[in-house]
């Protein structure tokens, strides 16, 4: 443990080099831009800039690229809050309360809360990496297909059963998501399914296309119904909004802590930032005393998913370094980078390249501080975007959506699909079908099915594998508990109100 601190101290010496600090600032700014442009996610951004780093030292290169990653994590929240368009999968849950806040003129607050929570989540994860990196790497090794499925099951269970909409509509919505997620190549059998011979459908329905359409385009159509004049309340540009919001945030320390833990766990296992954000939002909604108001612009509903997403996004780098298995698509690209710079990620990296590893960890501390400072200064600026009249911003958003949809897979057909999803989003929203379960199913469906079927292959078709060891049983148990929670709490409430027999 003491060695770790000594190493970290040396690491700071490396990371605090002026050239590296400059790279951090550049990286964060680029990352924010990448995060804001929908479709151009962190993974793409890092992949595109990777070749530029070949001429740098590996430490500088990874500082630049990981800062792009932090920046993209920060930036993803911006479009979610302002336009209801999540720039990244893990920002979807941020739209649930972030966008309603923006519509009621509290965009500045929502952005401040989002950025600050991101920072808290990331910082928690970095501290964890510093202290218990080797232990954590061991924990990640325990996760085979069955354990992974249990985690996805838990993520679903903690999120469903909480919508106000009629159950049959919620189920239809979620099942449509699952069905869309099945389209394309079946990973386990290598067969094409539900493509009906259309080569356009080979790629299936990417989650981002669905989200850009359902949320982004759908939102514009809904807004139009109210007429062109209507456009939320324009946010007042108030530089003090940051301080004011900060004063309210410590109240949510329990939510933050819980979200940090969920995030770190999901990042390491590696399930990733997206289930972490959904799970954290779902649990916060159930546990919080403001839970009923979630979805109408509750600040806690921004804190929970953002904290978890960043804790997950940051801790996802650990299994990549220590095991060579990427916890997120962006980590996968960074992994490619390590190989190209001649570094072999894996168990020996911490021993053989300790200067590189601790330089990187130190840069995570510095990079996140620099990042928070940078993005907070942009809050009033971004909040001001909502003051642009709707008849200018609407076509621009449409163009951005189209570009975003195209860049996901470089496919023009996706732009058409986005429009179909937009109309569908409008229709479903107006007829009280919840959209969140649909999106959750598209995101997690493929991974969950894959893990389930890998587990069954392993066990030769027996479902007892999901109860075969203490770890998987515990997670499945938690999942069942979370799924049945609405029933349990109903029973508890009944018990309390029933007069005790004398």
């Amino acid at each position, binding site marked *: 443990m003491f060695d770790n601190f000594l190493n970290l101290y040396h690491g700071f010496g490396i990371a605090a080099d002026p050239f590296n600090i*400059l790279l951090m600032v*550049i990286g964060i*700014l*680029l990352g924010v*831009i990448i995060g804001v442009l929908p479709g151009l996610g962190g*993974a*793409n951004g890092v*992949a595109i800039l*990777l*070749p*530029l780093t*070949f*001429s*740098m030292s590996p430490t500088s290169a990874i500082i630049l690229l990981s800062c792009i990653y932090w920046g993209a994590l920060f930036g993803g929240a911006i479009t979610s809050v302002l336009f209801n368009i999540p720039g990244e999968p893990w920002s979807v849950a941020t739209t649930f309360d972030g966008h309603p806040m923006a519509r009621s003129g509290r965009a500045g607050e929502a952005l401040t809360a989002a950025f600050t929570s991101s920072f808290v989540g990331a910082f928690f994860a970095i501290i964890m990496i510093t202290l218990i990196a080797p232990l954590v790497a061991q924990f*990640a*090794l*325990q*996760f*085979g*297909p069955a354990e992974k499925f249990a985690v996805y099951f838990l993520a679903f269970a903690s999120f469903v059963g909480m919508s106000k909409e009629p159950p049959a509509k919620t189920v239809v919505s979620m099942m449509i998501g699952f069905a869309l997620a099945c389209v*394309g*190549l*079946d*990973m*386990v*059998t*290598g*067969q*094409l399914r539900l*493509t009906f011979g259309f*080569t356009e459908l*080979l*790629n*299936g329905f990417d989650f981002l296309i669905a989200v850009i359409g359902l949320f982004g385009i759908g939102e514009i159509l809904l807004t139009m119904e109210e007429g062109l004049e209507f456009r939320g309340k324009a946010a007042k540009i108030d530089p003090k909004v940051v301080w004011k919001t900060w004063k309210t945030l410590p109240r949510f320390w329990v939510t933050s802590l819980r979200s940090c833990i969920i995030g770190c766990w999901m990042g390491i296992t590696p399930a990733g930032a997206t289930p972490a954000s959904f799970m954290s939002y779902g649990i916060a909604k159930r546990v919080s005393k403001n839970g009923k108001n979630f979805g109408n612009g509750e600040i806690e509903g921004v804190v929970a998913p953002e904290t978890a997403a960043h804790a997950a996004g940051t801790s996802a780098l650990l299994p990549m370094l220590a*095991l*060579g*298995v*990427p916890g997120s*698509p962006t980590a*996968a*690209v960074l*992994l*490619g980078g390590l*190989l*190209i710079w*001649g570094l*072999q*990620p*894996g*168990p*020996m*990296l911490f021993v053989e390249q300790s200067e590189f590893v601790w330089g990187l960890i130190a840069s995570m501390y510095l990079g996140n501080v620099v990042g928070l400072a940078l993005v907070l200064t942009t809050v009033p600026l971004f909040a001001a975007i909502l003051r642009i009249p709707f008849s200018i911003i609407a076509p621009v958003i449409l163009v951005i959506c189209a570009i975003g949809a195209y860049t996901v*897979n*470089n*496919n023009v057909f996706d732009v058409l699909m986005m429009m179909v999803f937009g109309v569908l989003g409008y229709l479903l929203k107006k007829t009280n079908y919840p959209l969140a379960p649909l999106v959750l199913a598209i995101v997690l469906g493929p991974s969950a099915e*894959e893990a389930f079927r*890998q587990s069954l*292959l*392993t066990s*030769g078709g027996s479902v007892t594998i999901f109860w075969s060891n203490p770890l998987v049983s515990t997670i499945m148990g938690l999942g069942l508990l979370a799924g049945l929670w609405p029933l349990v709490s109903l029973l508890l409430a009944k018990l309390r109100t029933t007069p005790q027999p004398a």
Partner: protein
Amino acid sequence: MKHLQAFGLGAVTALGMTAMSMLPAAAAWQPTRPVEFIVPAGTGGGADQMARTLQGIIAKHDLMPTQLVVINKSGGAGGEGFLDVKSSKGNPHKIVITLSNLFTTPLATGIPFNWKDLTPVAMLALDEFVLWVNAQEPYKTVQEYVDAIKAKPDGTFKMGGTGSKQEDQIITVAFQKAVGKKLTYIPYKGGGEVAVQLVGGHINSSVNNPIEAVSQWRGDKLRPLCVFDEKQLPYTDKILGDQSWSSIPTCKSAGVDVEYLMLRGIFMPPGVSDEQVAYFVDVFKKVRETPEWKQLMKDGAFNQSFMAGDEFKAWIEQAEANHKDLMQEAGFIAGN
């Protein structure tokens, strides 16, 4: 933003100076627009890594007058990328890197394309496959592992691999045939994941490419048993103790007669001129001379065969026939 560009340019010019001697002699045809480099696989995989390394090397040494832009089109086991190239008839500003899915995808899924729809440019390298087990297992040689498999009923041992009905599973089926016992094949998304599942003891063995598992070997978590090639690997740098790539025996020598190599080659759309093909062959010949490329070859223990023209075409034809036989035998050919 400007900083970065200036910075990038600076780096390129600085290194460009040293690379001056390698500048292309004025070729008859040169690209006039950015060249799209299609990767028929997802970001982060082996083909993607190689494509992005190529992009970096070409930019760093100024080997092309315009930029090379990497685009991933991974839908339908890469079918999406190949269809895109197939439909770009006569477009010289597009190249595609292939892996074995050039042969396996149309056979397994029925997606309508064939390598004959594309114009072969060059073979860059061949990727090796190695049989790995967890280092804590008692098996020190293939023979011991095979004996253990034979001693148990069918399907007891689990083999992990990348994708379904693709190279890893083809090798597994060939391996089963050589051993005479069935293994349970479990498909995963990426090679890195397979290696970690093997370290975690969730599967018994894998057929990872060298680069996917070398770090786990160095950390004494995995043990290579044999290489699926006709001769031992040439790389003698020490990796763990006094072991190197060259000390791994061939599977054939150990009585498991399975050989498989994966093509890392470059193709262009149909209908491009010989001149245009020659240009890219020339570019990739220059790439092969760069120190970065040599390093990549060494790190990944690649088989450095280079082919172009008729020799390459003949090789592909042979490889396609092999894949067809192997997949036919394994029952992997799409029914419709």
